[in-house]
């Protein structure tokens, strides 16, 4: 204290400021973040049997969901969307294969894109590439850290003449792959053998490309104004630019939903930010019996909030009158 008092005030304040700035610099250099993330977590439980690709498999009804809020896609060109406000996400794994099930409300089932003005409903999950050292930009990744995207589309390759029951075509001179130009060019969208889910990689806007291996499977179902879609892929990613999973560890996961009748495609979509995906070694917990704790916590929290807010207001009012 004695020493401090002899040093001029500006010097001590300045010194402290320098210390703060130095400390910050050291933390930045060390990449040591003193804060902890408090974002949502989606847990992939260990399933007791193979859930398969059926979105209505009984296992899913016993699996806890997380509601991820979605918003319109951000400022990148071809922005827009946002008609789907929330997606219910569930995850399981069985025999070293990850299953993710998304469910969302969409009053229009857009399962065809045979006409130029039609766009199909679609959904996607996004993971950081195996090679990513931290969380990449949720918007298509970044140059040094890529993302792996699995996209499911409600439509399948079709013959446009299917639209017209009485349509007649004399002949098509040749129907080799060569004459389906995109198919000949190796575009998976044009490949009739491609399933409804595409495995894609990206490192920035405009770089989304099909992955070398197309090993993601999936299936969608529509009923009562709701789509449910299951994505599935073995834990091991075939290459460094793909996602990889290990039981007992966490990675990140983000969601996107396209509403075809709103003209959603490309960047025009509803997107979430990254959630934590915890690939748990535990089995699906039975919700019965443990719910009381959550309910009590929630009720308690809400009581504190509501009661506290009103109480404080009243108290402040009284205090204000007294001092007046």
């Amino acid at each position, binding site marked *: 204290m004695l020493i401090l008092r002899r040093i001029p005030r500006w010097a001590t304040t300045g010194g402290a400021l320098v210390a703060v700035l130095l400390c910050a610099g050291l933390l930045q250099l060390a990449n040591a973040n003193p804060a902890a993330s408090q974002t949502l977590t989606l847990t992939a439980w260990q399933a007791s049997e193979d859930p398969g690709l059926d979105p209505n498999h009984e296992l899913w009804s016993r699996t806890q969901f997380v509601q991820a809020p979605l918003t319109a896609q951000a*400022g*990148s*060109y*071809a*922005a*827009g969307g946002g008609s789907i406000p929330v997606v219910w996400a569930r995850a399981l794994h069985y025999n070293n294969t990850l299953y993710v099930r998304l469910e969302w409300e969409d009053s229009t089932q857009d399962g065809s*894109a*045979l*006409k*130029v*003005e039609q*766009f199909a409903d679609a959904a996607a999950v996004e993971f950081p590439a195996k090679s990513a050292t931290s969380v990449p930009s949720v918007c298509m990744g970044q140059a040094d850290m890529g993302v792996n995207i699995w996209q499911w589309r409600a*439509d399948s*390759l*079709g*013959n*446009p*003449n299917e639209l017209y029951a009485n349509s007649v*075509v004399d002949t*098509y*001179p*040749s*129907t080799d792959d060569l*004459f*389906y*130009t*995109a*198919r*000949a*060019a*190796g*575009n998976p*969208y*044009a490949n009739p053998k491609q399933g409804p889910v595409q495995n894609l990689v990206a490192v920035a*806007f*405009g770089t*989304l*490309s099909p992955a070398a291996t197309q090993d993601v499977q999936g299936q969608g179902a529509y009923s009562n104004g709701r789509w449910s879609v299951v994505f599935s892929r073995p834990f091991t990613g075939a290459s460094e630019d793909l996602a990889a999973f290990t039981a007992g560890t966490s990675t990140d996961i983000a969601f996107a939903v396209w509403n075809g009748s709103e003209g959603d*495609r*490309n*960047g*025009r979509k509803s997107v979430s930010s990254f959630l934590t995906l915890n690939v748990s070694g535990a089995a699906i917990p039975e919700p019965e019996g443990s719910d009381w704790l959550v309910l009590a916590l929630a009720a308690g929290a809400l009581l504190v909030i509501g009661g506290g807010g009103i109480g404080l207001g009243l108290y402040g009012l009284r205090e204000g009158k007294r001092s007046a």
Partner: protein
Amino acid sequence: MAKVYNWQLGREMDYRFPNGKAKRQFAAVFNINRCIACQTCSMACKSTWTFSPGQELMWWNNVETKPYGGYPNHWDVNILALQEKANPGAQVWDAARRSGRAAPYGVFEGKTIFETADQVNNMVTGYIPPEADWKAPNIHEDTATAAPAAGVTLPEHGGWFFYLQRICNHCSYPACLAACPRNAIYKREEDGIVLIDQNRCRGYRKCVEACPYKKSMYRPSTRTSEKCIACYPRIEGSDPLTEGLPMETRCMAACVGKIRLQGLVRVDDRGEWIEDRQNPLYYLVHVAKVALPLYPQFGTQPNVYYIPPRWVPRPYLRQMFGPGVDDAIAAYTHPERETVAVLQLFRASQRIVFSYKIEPGPKTAEITVGGQKREIFNDTIIGYDSNGKEVVRVTVDEPTAERPGQLNSI
């Protein structure tokens, strides 16, 4: 957003990307006055490129009857309406501010399709024509605006229609390219041809939405979009017939009415044409100024130029081809001696003519057009290929031969 120079508008404009490095630009002149709408071009294109499943509604080349026809229906009216709505009453030209090759038609003071877009949700103002609009490619064929009992006379017919021949304009500032969020569309350096990478396309139809000429088309059987490829193998000289030299596209080469002349012009870093006096396209567009771009006000700097039909009311033509219409029609009605010769090059050779030379010939006729006297000279025009080798030689007077009487079957 970059600033690029659009000489057809006589001003700088906003475009998503800075100027590319195209050295040569695919370009063509179509003489509307000569077209008989036989659709040979349409069939030549169709039977070469778009005869497979999913391409049923796809006509990379089409010929439509104006003012009512359109493929897709009302494409131009729809874009004009969108633009007018975005910038009401201000889509106007200042034709007085003409200056050389940098602003040959004056200055467009309105907004381009890039400038009326918000650049976030859309790069380009446009719309997707629904499927029904693509299903009647030759609707309103030969439908005139009226059938005056007294007949029609020049300079403007009381009842009129004309044929508009359309392919992809391989624009200098392509709207399709600017609109593609995936960078799947590119413009080639060597010839300015605009192509959709069929491997990268994911069928978002942003190009279909953006192209004001509606020459990007969706193919449901591959879930991608396709467009006119300017018969690039022919332009590259891959056809054995020309022994490696650039060759005109199928639609040009098949033209029965000899209305089309196509070539490659040299362009500078700003997208302006480099002076090339003896290139027939350069001559028609920049010297004689008889050929004009289609809807230049959209701002894409299209590269197919039209000699406007002489009989059509001027306000309609000015909307379609800009303020250069009156001069172009005058230059076509009373052509220079050189123009008459250059017009002979149309459809004279399958090989692309890069330059020409005229050998003067004797005066063979004197005629009167619109009260003005005109002399006809039987000049000879010689066209040269990219190596300066002669590929064609034609005279103004078509050579005639009288058949001996006994060979006549009649």
